[in-house]
């Protein structure tokens, strides 16, 4: 297992380099200009100056190389400095966002908490809801609960968040006034009141997101449970005189979770990618919003870095999913 993991990690390096190159070329080819948001009253010559000041005059490969060096050499040093108080990175140029002229990684780190709070909670909540639903739907296949579950999850899947989000805002913020429509990213949870405030502002985005995730995960869970409920070992367990609860919740569940856990693990990168539209609707201003504003402002270093981090997570969680599979299923042996 260890060699398998290490091998995959080592193989991931060229893959990631290739991905980063493709992303870079893609961004280079895409039309648009970091000066798009500068008002029309600023004349073109000045915009040209500003562009040059950002280093846009250099040839493509030089910029790619610079990015690679900054991302893989300088940023880790900054991280080390941050934790150990050393100063390896002093004076080195970090990956700088064109939009904010500040190090990209600082902003990413600033954005992580709210994305993790909202998207992460939604993911956890959705998973926690989806698994029991999936179990029960499968156990009572074709019951009204199962049918209703299918119906609701398909609805949840087919309603876009820019609609459901606005709908809950109009109902719960505007009409009822229960929850704020705008997420306060500066809120710090220090006591009970601020915790409640945090809870209140999280409820709507979390619900909207969770609806979508629940729909998919519960379908998976149901299918997996159905597969296992007909297996021979279930009959063996029953023949031992175990209660229905232990049969389903211990024997069947453990086996059914194997594929579902990897599906859940593979969904984790999406948390870090943020939920672009939901974040926009509720003004959560997490990673998703960061990416979309960066794309709109043609902030290449930011987009490049964010998508690359995303790619790293995808590759990493692919690996984690495989390893988890091996851990959960004693029959799988990687070597």
């Amino acid at each position, binding site marked *: 297992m260890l060699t398998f993991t290490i091998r995959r990690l080592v193989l991931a390096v060229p*893959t990631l380099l*290739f*991905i980063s190159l*493709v*992303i870079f070329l*893609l*961004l280079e*080819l*895409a*039309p*648009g200009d970091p000066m798009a948001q500068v008002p029309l009253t600023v004349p073109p010559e000045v915009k040209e100056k500003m562009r040059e000041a950002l280093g846009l005059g250099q040839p493509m490969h030089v910029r790619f190389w610079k990015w690679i060096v900054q991302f893989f050499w300088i940023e880790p040093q900054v991280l080390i400095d941050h934790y150990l108080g050393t100063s390896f990175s002093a004076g080195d140029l970090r990956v700088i966002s064109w939009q904010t002229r500040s190090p990209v990684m600082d902003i990413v780190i600033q954005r992580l908490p709210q994305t993790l709070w909202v998207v992460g909670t939604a993911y956890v909540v959705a998973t926690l809801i989806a698994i029991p639903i999936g179990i029960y739907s499968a156990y009572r296949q074709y019951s009204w609960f199962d049918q209703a579950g*299918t*119906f609701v999850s*398909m*609805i949840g*899947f*087919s*309603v*876009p968040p*820019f*609609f459901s989000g*606005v*709908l809950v805002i*109009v109902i719960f913020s*505007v009409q009822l006034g229960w929850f704020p429509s705008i997420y306060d990213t500066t809120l710090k949870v220090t006591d009970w009141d601020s915790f409640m405030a945090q809870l209140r502002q999280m409820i709507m985005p979390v619900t909207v997101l969770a609806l979508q995730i629940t729909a998919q995960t519960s379908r998976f869970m149901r*299918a997996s449970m159905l*597969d296992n409920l*007909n297996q021979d070992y279930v009959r063996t367990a029953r023949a031992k005189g175990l209660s229905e609860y232990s049969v389903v919740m211990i024997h069947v569940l453990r086996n059914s979770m194997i594929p579902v856990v990897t599906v859940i693990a593979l969904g984790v990168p999406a948390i870090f990618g943020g939920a672009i*539209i939901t974040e926009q609707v509720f003004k959560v201003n997490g990673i998703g919003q960061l*990416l*979309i504003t960066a*794309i709109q402002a043609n902030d290449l270093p930011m*987009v490049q870095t964010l*998508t*690359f981090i*995303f*790619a790293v997570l*995808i*590759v990493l969680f*692919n690996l984690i999913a495989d390893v988890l599979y091996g851990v959960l299923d004693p029959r799988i042996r990687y070597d």
Partner: protein
Amino acid sequence: MTEQKAPVPASGPVPSAAGPIPSKPPRSQWADVWDQFRHHKGAMFGAFVFIFIVAGVYLGPLVWRVDPQFLPQGRDFLNLRDTRPIWVALYDSGAKVNWAYPLGTDNLGRDTLARLMFGGRVSIAVGLVAMLLSLLLGTLVGVLAGFSRKLDGPLMRLTDLFLALPLLPLILVASLLFRESLSANFGPEGGIFILVVLLIGITSWMHTARIVRGDVLALKEREFVLAARSIGTSNSKIILRHMLPNILSPIMVSATLGIATAIITESALSFLGFGFPPDFPTWGRLLNDGVDRLVSYPERPILPGILISLTVLSVNYLGDGLRDALDPRIRGR
């Protein structure tokens, strides 16, 4: 998705040699499929709704001959814009309704019913074609990766790459490179249709590919594949005859989810300004445009929203039924 257990064989012939099972008269395969399909309640419901929607949006305009792009002029404009659907009059007697516009008009006085029909044509076409494309790509990559050990690694890394690619810059690049030539060849709407469909297709095949690969890997170990090889079936025939029919079920599931994703992605594209020309409504765009006036004119986002959901639901049930009908093991029960 493990294989369905073959049902317990019916009690066998004994003791005479080769005693035949009391045999039913030979039936045609398609009659069989239809027979099974007909008895699937959900599938019949799905098919009915789907056909109703498709007929509505494609044939409806023959009956309801109103130009969805027509704007009333002059005084009419002020009179006719923002009419409500007629049922609003039931509970709000002061509402502005007009029997000539059963579903009301939008803020520019265009007929909502006509626009819904027009938009449906585009959305359904986009949904179906993009879904087919993504299925095709996903199945192709999945089958190749599962089938060939050598291609497996590279293709799966390619899948990772596509998962990581940001959609928006991709769209920008594609429209930069291809829009002009496509619209020169297929007309502005046709060109954008192709572009949108291609983009949605090539950015949504990855999950299908993963699932298909897993299933192909499992199928490859099955004995009938070995048997096929021993009777001289070529690789491509093995894939076509023996693998594909047996992975139909996950493909069907991807297909139903794919339609929903495609319709919604198209609306997001319009929202961001990459989709169809602005006077070319789609359900997604109608929904999107209506969100601003959700409170005063709730029907504007809700009607297209319901249509999208209904389409997706019906396709889902339809897919369930088709899957069962096409699988002879289930059909036999």
